[in-house]
């Protein structure tokens, strides 16, 4: 989409089209000849994998929607009907529900990759920010979708999450007169379309769940556009210096992406065919019942770290701000990272804090899955899990707002190779 085009129309028709709508040129320049650093590793295949995941969710979702009924009375039955009566409905259902998990698995690896190789830094800030926006919309889409089967966990997740907004009552307790509800309650009831999660809520959630994947698709186009202006970063984090540093995207990366995509799909297929309920919650096989609160309400695994943060804070409004702050923080990463070196391969101190950060996210995920009053027995001492959750939350924020800027200034980076080509061909490959 930028730089020099090498497309040459081969016949009259393509010359004719090229003079009117150079779409073949666009495809050729972005997907075939695009100069790509020759040292991209497996972690660079996840962008392509994510595009595949989005396509799978959209295609299976459209067919599921043909058989789904978005009403409180019929939603659960219609989903069970898809599994039992619709031709290959069980397959569509399991691909779509496990597809969400695979999508998030891929996006987290993609994001950690970006952090590790400093891909958010100049000149790729807009690319990164578009990524963060995509992630936010993905979370919204997944949450809305989880409500649709109208099982117990669907209903109660919707109730818990929409109720977060009521914390805004602490800011404006009464909108209008003294007897009017506060800001938060007003917003929450507006989201519900009533006074509790119910039929109108389900209906609008369905509508939005259908809409947002297409919003993501549009954002992905911008994301890839913003990638193709500066070009890919790479595991060394150094700039491409000339043609000797790159290879054309096709066939070099089409075949590499294809191979790793296939491995990814094998894992995906294993979940779908042999453990389709592994990531699910058994409570969601019981129809939503507003009168029975499940003893243990948990979100899907990919939101557990944020759930742990939310619960670690006793004050609801602060908890909600921390929750949103944790995601909003990502928007500032390009400027919080003060190092002049991109890749953590050459940043001995930052690398360690990075891996602690990865461990911290996993720990928070685990803590989010535990019952709120759970306790660790450490020797003779009982430690409520609240405390590791608080420390984990603190580290999450400290990593971005303190460690990242400070280490960037004080750390002495290791020497970097002169060029990508020198690194690849001169046997000077880093061991990672």
């Amino acid at each position, binding site marked *: 989409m930028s730089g020099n085009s090498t497309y040459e129309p081969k016949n009259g028709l393509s010359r004719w089209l090229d003079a009117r709508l150079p779409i073949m040129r666009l495809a050729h320049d972005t997907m075939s000849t695009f100069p790509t650093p020759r040292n991209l590793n497996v972690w660079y295949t996840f962008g392509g994998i994510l595009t595949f995941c989005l396509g799978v969710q959209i295609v299976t979702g459209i067919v599921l929607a043909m058989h789904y009924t978005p009403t409180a009375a019929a939603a659960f039955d219609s989903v069970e009907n898809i599994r*039992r009566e619709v031709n290959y409905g069980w397959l569509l259902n399991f691909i779509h529900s496990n597809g969400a998990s695979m999508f998030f698995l891929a996006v987290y690896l993609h994001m950690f990759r970006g952090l590790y190789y400093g891909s958010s830094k100049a000149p790729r800030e807009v690319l990164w920010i578009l990524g963060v926006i995509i992630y936010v919309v993905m979370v919204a889409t997944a949450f809305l979708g989880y409500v649709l089967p109208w099982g117990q966990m669907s209903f109660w997740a919707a109730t818990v999450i929409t109720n977060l907004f009521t914390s805004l009552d602490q800011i404006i307790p009464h909108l209008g007169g003294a007897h009017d509800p506060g800001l938060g309650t007003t917003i929450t009831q507006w989201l519900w379309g009533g006074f509790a999660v119910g039929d109108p809520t389900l209906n609008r959630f369905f509508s939005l769940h259908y809409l947002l994947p297409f919003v993501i698709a549009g954002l992905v186009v911008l994301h890839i556009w913003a990638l193709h202006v500066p070009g890919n970063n790479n595991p060394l984090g150094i700039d491409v210096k000339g043609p000797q540093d790159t290879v054309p995207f096709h066939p070099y990366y089409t075949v590499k992406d294809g191979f790793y995509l296939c491995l990814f799909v094998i894992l995906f297929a294993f979940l779908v065919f042999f453990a389709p309920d592994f990531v699910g919650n058994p409570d969601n096989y019981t129809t939503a019942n507003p009168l029975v609160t499940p003893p243990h309400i948990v979100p899907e695994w990919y939101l557990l770290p944020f759930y742990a943060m939310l619960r670690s804070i006793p004050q609801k409004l602060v908890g909600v701000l921390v929750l949103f702050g944790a995601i909003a923080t990502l928007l500032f990463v390009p400027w919080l990272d003060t190092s002049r070196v991109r890749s953590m391969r050459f940043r001995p101190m930052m690398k360690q804090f990075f891996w602690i950060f990865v461990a911290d996210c996993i720990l928070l995920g685990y803590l989010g899955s535990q019952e709120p009053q759970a306790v660790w027995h450490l020797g003779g001492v009982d430690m409520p899990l609240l*405390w590791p959750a608080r*420390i984990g939350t603190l580290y999450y924020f400290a990593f971005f707002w303190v460690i990242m800027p400070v280490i960037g200034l004080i750390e002495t980076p290791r020497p970097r190779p002169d060029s990508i080509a020198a690194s690849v*061909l001169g046997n000077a490959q880093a061991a990672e």
Partner: protein
Amino acid sequence: MRIALPLAVVFALVVPALADDAANTTDPLPPKEVAFPFQGPFGTYDREQLQRGFQVYKEVCSACHSLNRIAYHDLDGIGFDAAQIKALAAAAKIPAEPNDKGETYDSDGQRLTRPGIPADTLPAPFANEKAARANNNGALPPDLSVIVKAREGGAAYVYSILSGFGQKPPPGFHVLANKYYNPYFAGRNISMPPPLTEGAVTYSDGTTASVDQEAKDVVTFLSWASEPKMEERKRMGFEVILFLLALAGLLYLSYRRVWRDMH
């Protein structure tokens, strides 16, 4: 962090530790360790066992539990042929549709019924939730169509419940009125009377109807009911994964070949 750690220790000391024995008498036991032949990637159902399980459901559980998502014609999945299905359906009393006068009850207030056809779902024992509760001391026997998927522990859990009656409650445990002690159930007080007894059914294939056997059979049947497409799913899974492995092999070879001179 400097403040948090000592604080954590202080907090942990102040919070009274959960008294383990007090918790133990009401917390449910983990389900029994039991493996079913239909589990695991290669597991399939034994048709005879499925039919025995159906017999247990029909003769015992269906007095209280519905199985709303199973129609008679679905029973071809457990090995019944068309004639058997037709006969089973015809023997059932299905609540009738309104007759020519628009009535669904006869002059004595009895619900009108008709013989079933294969497309009918198995009839529910009670007309509605209120009737079900009224007949079960206020408790609701859940529909069993997806019960195996709807409980943590799945088949092992349902098996543990069914075979977990008749144990002596620990000293001091209070069995509530109209409830039964079952250590695998949350709270250990369950409203379901022990449904299975030695010889509760007579198996036509000569299998001895012990409580354990009946429980295993009905759990097998209910597992099938919760996902009748399971065997198809696994079969297709093998085909898909074999195909993908072969494809991955080819892609790997192409990958090596394309990149051969590049590093």
